[in-house]
């Protein structure tokens, strides 16, 4: 038996102008998606002849009452488990639209399939069981629609027959889901009471929902707008490949937004090189005249030979995308292992890929939960905002400026593990005109690394006064220097005597003190040195800022000597003065030191000798890629 549902009608054959709209039906498991789909196919006359009778016969043979959802449950495995595994695509017609219906699974286990389906949709139907109301997967799917950029969302409240078609019950659910969606910036196009099983509200306003005056599901679908190519935006042609099959050198890709024509002055980002489009190539007829708009897969030749590679973006000078090594994104996460600060990833923006490190994680929540408690890592099927640092510069746009190029996916071990929207591009420079060439150091980083046998780093020692930071810093400095390295000590107190002499101990001044330390240390690290910073740096927020500045070079060491031991040591007599009330704003005797939660290393100097502690630091620097364990092939990194 073959359970396919063939298209009742071809999608927009030659000459017709019916818009095609792709929709997805989402919502909590068992709230009636498949039933609604089956009913919609029936109501729009889309079922193949005899299909309904055949299914009823199959149901009878199996001793089960007929369900509309059987239409979709084509896979044996699905029938066995009673859940829809994956996205199927079915077509039908409303009055003025060709609808491609993408069914997506509601089971939390298959969120990756829901995302796969919903990402292709122009609009969505969010289904809610009138009896059960808004559930976790309802909220989660609502959130994902927002992240996937699906803006047209119709809500249907199903199984109204189970609540006696109560207008009050309908209003409660309608208010709750509308508030949730509005909070995400999504305004539902309609909220419709239905009974998919009986047909109320699907194609007809029956007497049982006589109190409802809005559109039926079919009418709501008929009002959806198809996706429009983004021709009005600035030109973005991400380069998929350069082809040299013959004497032409063709830059190939799909125009994601804007348009181009032979003769246009273009800029290739992120390098910022300028050229002119010579021809637009095609086959079988070439070259093609006329303007090529968004959505077209094209090939262009340029008036000069430039080094261009896959992932570059062709734009118009003046409206080029930002070049960055650093961005913030709002993402959803699908991998079993939660995404945590420090994780190494592969990020893809269109055809461009770059290795990346998660520098910070914020707002990590389960979008299915009502009270969203924030987590430090982004768990499977959760969402969050991340700062990522990229090892290669990429050209991108915030999604608010360009929904096509302002999104990315994250890969782990060669498999897509998450995706999201580019919120902002840090320190993003607009395209640098090509005739301004920034002066760079005469030395490449790898030349310095080859001499010092380490990479640049910021080793940040934080801890209470007298915890042993300066002692450890000096021991480490001596150790690294003896091994041929280039360590530089930046002691907080020492720098306060000069560079930071204008700063006091207010919260603002302390923050500025830390910022300057971090900036200087980062400058040294970028030039291949290991900057060892010894500073109390009590505020977590300030250290987080330092980490943002130093980025992947940052190594935090918490010198966690117990407070009692520190006060007993008191080599500078500060604790004594503070106890006597003679030293305001002294960190140590109050509770104003905020211990790190995820330091690269924690050392209690009351439990080990200075040499042992230095060993531990050295080991950490080796395992985290700062010190070279053995001679490495530096040429391979060039």
């Amino acid at each position: 038996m073959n359970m396919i549902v063939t298209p009742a009608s071809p999608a927009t054959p030659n000459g017709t102008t019916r818009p095609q709209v792709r929709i997805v039906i989402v919502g909590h498991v068992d709230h009636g998606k498949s039933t609604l789909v089956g009913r919609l196919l029936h109501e729009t006359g889309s079922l193949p002849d005899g299909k309904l009778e055949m299914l009823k016969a199959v149901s009878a043979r199996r001793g089960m009452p007929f369900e509309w959802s059987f239409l979709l449950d084509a896979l044996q495995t699905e029938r066995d488990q009673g859940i829809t595994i994956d996205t199927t695509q079915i077509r039908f017609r409303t009055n003025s639209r060709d609808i491609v219906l993408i069914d997506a699974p509601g089971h939390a286990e298959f969120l990756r399939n829901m995302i796969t389906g919903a990402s292709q949709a122009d609009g969505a139907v969010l289904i809610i069981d009138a009896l059960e109301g808004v559930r976790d997967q309802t909220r989660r799917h609502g959130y994902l629609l927002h992240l996937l950029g699906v803006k047209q969302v119709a809500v249907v409240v199903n199984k109204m027959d189970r609540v006696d078609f109560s207008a009050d019950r309908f209003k409660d659910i309608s208010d709750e889901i509308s508030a949730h969606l509005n909070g995400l910036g999504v305004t539902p196009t309609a909220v419709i009471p239905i009974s998919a099983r009986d047909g109320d509200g699907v194609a007809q306003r029956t007497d049982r929902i006589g109190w409802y005056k809005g559109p039926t599901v079919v009418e709501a679908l008929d009002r959806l707008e198809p996706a429009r190519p983004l021709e009005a935006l600035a030109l973005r042609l991400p380069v998929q490949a350069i082809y040299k099959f013959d004497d032409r050198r063709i830059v190939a890709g799909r125009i994601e937004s804007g348009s181009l024509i032979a003769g246009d002055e273009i800029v290739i980002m992120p390098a910022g090189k300028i050229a002119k489009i010579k021809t637009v190539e095609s086959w079988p007829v070439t070259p093609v005249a006329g303007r090529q708009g968004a959505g077209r897969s094209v090939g262009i030749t340029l008036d000069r030979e430039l080094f261009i590679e896959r992932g570059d973006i062709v734009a118009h000078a003046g409206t080029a995308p930002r070049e960055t090594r650093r961005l913030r994104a709002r993402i959803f996460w699908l991998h079993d292992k939660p995404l945590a600060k420090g994780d190494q990833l592969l990020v893809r923006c269109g055809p461009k890929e770059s290795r990346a490190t998660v520098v910070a994680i914020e707002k990590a929540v389960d979008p299915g939960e009502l009270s969203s408690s924030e987590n430090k890592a982004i768990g499977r099927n959760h969402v969050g905002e991340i700062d990522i640092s990229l090892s290669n510069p990429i050209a991108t746009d915030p999604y608010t400026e360009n929904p096509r190029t302002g999104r990315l996916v994250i890969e782990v071990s060669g498999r897509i593990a998450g995706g999201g929207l580019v919120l902002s591009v840090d320190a993003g420079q607009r395209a640098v005109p090509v005739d301004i060439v920034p002066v760079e150091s005469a030395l490449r980083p790898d030349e310095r690394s080859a001499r010092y046998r380490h990479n640049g780093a910021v080793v940040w020692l934080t801890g209470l006064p007298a915890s042993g930071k300066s002692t450890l810093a000096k021991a480490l400095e001596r150790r690294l220097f003896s091994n041929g390295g280039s360590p530089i000590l930046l002691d907080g107190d020492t720098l306060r005597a000069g560079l930071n002499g204008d700063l006091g101990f207010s919260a603002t001044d302390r923050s500025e003190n830390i910022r300057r330390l971090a900036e200087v240390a980062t400058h040294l690290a970028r030039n291949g040195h290991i900057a060892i910073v010894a500073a109390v740096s009590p505020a977590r927020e300030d250290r987080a800022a330092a980490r943002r500045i130093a980025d992947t070079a940052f190594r935090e060491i918490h010198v966690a000597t117990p407070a009692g031991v520190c006060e007993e040591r008191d080599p500078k007599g500060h604790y004594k003065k503070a106890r006597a009330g003679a030293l305001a704003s002294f960190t140590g005797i109050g509770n104003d030191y905020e211990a790190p939660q995820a330091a690269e290393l924690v050392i209690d100097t009351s439990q080990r000798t200075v040499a042992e502690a230095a060993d531990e630091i050295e080991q950490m620097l080796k395992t985290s890629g700062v010190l070279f364990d053995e001679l490495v092939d530096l040429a391979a990194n060039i």
Partner: protein
Amino acid sequence: MDHLDQLEAQSIYIFREAFARLKKIALLWSLGKDSNVMIWLARKAFFGRMPFPALHVDTGKKFPEMYRFRDHYGKEWDLDLRVEPCPPIDAVDPTLPPAARSAARKTEGLKMALAKYGFDGLIAGIRRDEEATRAKERVFSPRGLEGNWDVRDQPPEFWDHFNASPPQGAHLRIHPILHWTEADIWAYTKRENIPIIPLYLSQNGKRYRSLGDQDITNPVNSTASTIDEILVELEQTKVPERAGRALDHETEDAFERLRVAGYL
């Protein structure tokens, strides 16, 4: 841009991604209407030439018109044509129903060709609207080491980002026309003037909607003797495209079993 332009642009994008991200790919040429459209799209993507082989896994039981078509257009389109045989029927799972077993030979032939050439990607012309299990496919669809398809563990795929890293020894199926319909194929074939095998057009009240092996493919009743007439017929019919394919109808799960094992 009209509907066909959009389909074409999307398929070209997929072809270019496959060519850029995989090391050694081939296009599975079944000689049917869908794979002929694919070859046309590939030539568009790569400006006139298809820069990878066309692989015909030959059951030896195709219609004579199909072999003539292959030999003629293989040359005219300058294809790097590789014809690979299938093993004898005895080598195939005897628990499958007869037609499915016959079709499964092709799966075995495919495995042999994969082993011979070491392709890491095979481009196949399946479409979501053909058959329910195909509707569940990804554009880049990973296969296991045995060529098998794990429908329960498909990676997410969105925003035209594809999972293109098959494990060592495994391969990917790439489906550039997954989003097309049967009517799209015909409308595009007409617009682009792509050659077809005449068996698709009605003779004596019957035509083939789908072409497979001679012994397991049946014609459907039809008077459509031009592509335009086919398009009109498709507007009205509620008969599934693969109705003439015996293997789809033997048991409820025969087709899925075939696909899990690596059938297209």
